[in-house]
């Protein structure tokens, strides 16, 4: 059975079709792996009872019988959805998120809830209110965040795929730290209905898998036009698998974001690995490579901090001790009940982000912060639109550094926040981007680059990523303790 641990979705589909294994056996097999490894890894907040996973499963569809894990901020009817927060400890979702409904209709088996940073706020998974999650390649290091549990479970071969969510890089960063593939789709390609909001104008559900084709399988299943999400957009085609083998068109150009590659503080091993990937595209695939600067890049993290915190302050106002789970018991009046509940129910990071959000929106500060951040966001969008008239895709590092030690940034939260430096401009511009593994540090920690494309260019991103992946062995490497 051990051959299933790191099997691709296509392999599993073949084995299921040939009846070499049943969906029930697969779920039991992965449940046993969680039981064996996850006490120390900490990737899941809950693995459901096997019978309940199989009970309503449809045994047909593109993901029939393929188990996966869902980030804990995505609603699964009748299951807990805590956002790894104490304030939603006992919240049971009363409906399926559209992505969950789509996955069930595709026959997928949803095994449990992935650990994460509380309300998806963090870059290391250290802000989970429940437990630490560790990096499968080095248990002293973080898996990245905020979708850290999703990334760690997939990288450790505990499950073939997982859903995560992004606001500023929360799928691509943990994918890079854990040596797997992570996609952040075009804003609106995947429905946000049932994704518990952090910053609604930036949030998007993403997919984490060990291989590029696996990733395309899952995105094909979850992407849809959804009238329940007013920002949902209709695409011509949701099949990202069929043309994945196609080589890139002639006269294709990849733009290297030079000021990202030369950014102060970029780890040299990351830089070297990304340069090797650029060389592969230019020399092996004979693709045009064009170096350019994105002048707005260096302002994107600041604009992202402001816009995301402002929206968070508004979105998280609903957690007030009236409608969901936790309520402070000692309060004598309504105000104290709100304020005590929100102090005790939210962790430090969430409280800080709500307060930053209210500051940048408040009278006297909104002009300097929020309105200027919106202007910068428009400048970023305009610069990107202009850039994609000259190049087809962009390449940058996904990460500023390899996975860091647990606790490394306890005393320097700004540096922790700046882990989103290379990723958040993508969210501000609503673009799709994919993080692709491209090597290891001398200490064995994974490295990655990201490809960024114009709106709705997911099919091309997958093709470009697949060409790289198939010419290298990185995706075949497995962490040794699993």
């Amino acid at each position, binding site marked *: 059975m051990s051959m299933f641990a790191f099997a691709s979705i296509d392999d599993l589909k073949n084995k299921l079709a040939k009846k070499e294994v049943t969906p029930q056996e697969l779920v039991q097999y992965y449940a046993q792996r969680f039981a064996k490894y996850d006490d120390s890894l900490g990737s899941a907040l809950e693995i459901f009872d096997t019978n309940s996973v199989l009970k309503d499963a449809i045994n047909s569809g593109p993901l029939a019988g393929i188990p996966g894990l869902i980030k804990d901020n995505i609603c699964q009817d009748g299951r807990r959805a805590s956002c790894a927060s104490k304030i939603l400890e*006992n*919240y*049971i979702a*009363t409906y399926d998120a559209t992505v969950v409904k789509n996955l069930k209709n595709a026959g997928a088996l949803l095994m449990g809830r992935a650990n994460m940073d509380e309300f998806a706020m963090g870059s290391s998974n250290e802000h989970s209110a429940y437990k630490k999650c560790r990096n499968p390649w080095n248990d002293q290091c973080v898996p990245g965040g905020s979708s850290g549990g999703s990334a760690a479970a997939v990288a450790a071969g505990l499950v073939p795929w997982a859903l995560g969510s992004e606001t500023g890089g929360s799928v691509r960063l943990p994918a890079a730290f854990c040596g797997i593939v992570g996609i952040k789709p075009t804003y609106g390609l995947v429905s946000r209905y049932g994704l518990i909001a952090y910053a609604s104008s930036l949030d998007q559900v993403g997919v984490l898998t060990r291989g590029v084709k696996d990733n395309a399988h899952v995105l094909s299943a979850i992407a849809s036009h959804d*009238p329940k999400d*007013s*920002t949902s957009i209709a695409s011509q085609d949701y099949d990202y698998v069929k043309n994945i083998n196609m080589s890139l068109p002639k006269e294709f150009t990849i733009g290297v974001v030079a000021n990202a590659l030369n950014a102060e503080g970029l780890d040299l091993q990351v830089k070297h690995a990304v340069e090797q990937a650029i060389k592969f595209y230019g020399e092996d695939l004979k693709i045009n490579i064009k170096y350019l600067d994105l002048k*707005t890049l260096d*302002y994107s*993290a*600041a*604009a992202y*901090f*402001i816009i995301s915190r402002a929206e968070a*302050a508004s979105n998280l*106002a609903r957690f*007030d*001790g*009236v*409608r*969901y*789970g*936790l*309520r402070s018991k000692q*309060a*004598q*009046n*309504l*105000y*104290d*009940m*709100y*304020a*005590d509940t*929100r*102090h005790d129910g*939210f962790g430090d990071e969430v*409280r*800080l982000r*709500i*307060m*930053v959000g*209210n*500051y*940048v929106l*408040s009278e006297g500060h909104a002009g*300097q*912060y929020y309105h*200027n*951040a919106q*202007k*910068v966001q*428009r*400048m970023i*969008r*305009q610069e990107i639109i202009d850039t994609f008239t000259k190049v087809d895709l962009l390449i940058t590092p996904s990460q500023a550094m390899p996975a860091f030690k647990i606790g490394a940034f306890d005393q320097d*939260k*700004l540096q922790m*926040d700046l882990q989103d430096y290379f990723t958040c401009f993508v969210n501000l511009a609503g673009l799709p981007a994919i993080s692709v593994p491209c090597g290891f540090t001398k200490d064995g920690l994974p490295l990655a680059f990201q490809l960024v494309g114009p709106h709705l260019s997911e099919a091309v991103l997958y093709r470009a990523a697949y060409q790289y992946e198939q010419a290298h062995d990185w995706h075949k490497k497995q962490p040794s303790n699993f």
Partner: protein
Amino acid sequence: MVKITREEVLKLATMSRIHIHENEIEELISQLKSVLSYAERVSEICGDVSVASSKNSNVFRADEVVYTDSQSILAQAPQAEDNYFVVLPILDK
């Protein structure tokens, strides 16, 4: 460097409906200063530049009543009675 006073933090906490304990104030001041000082750089680049907003359009749907089982939603509340959420009194007797 942005200046944040103790009074401002307390006002911000009130606006945010979050109680702040005395021993948390110093740390909050330092963290707010750090992130806001970094975020200030947005003013450097945009200045008085006017940039056209994107051409977003509104999306509407029909206002149709759909049956929802309110009991499963009320069951999540710390306190509920009949078809209502129960809160502490907001008017003096």
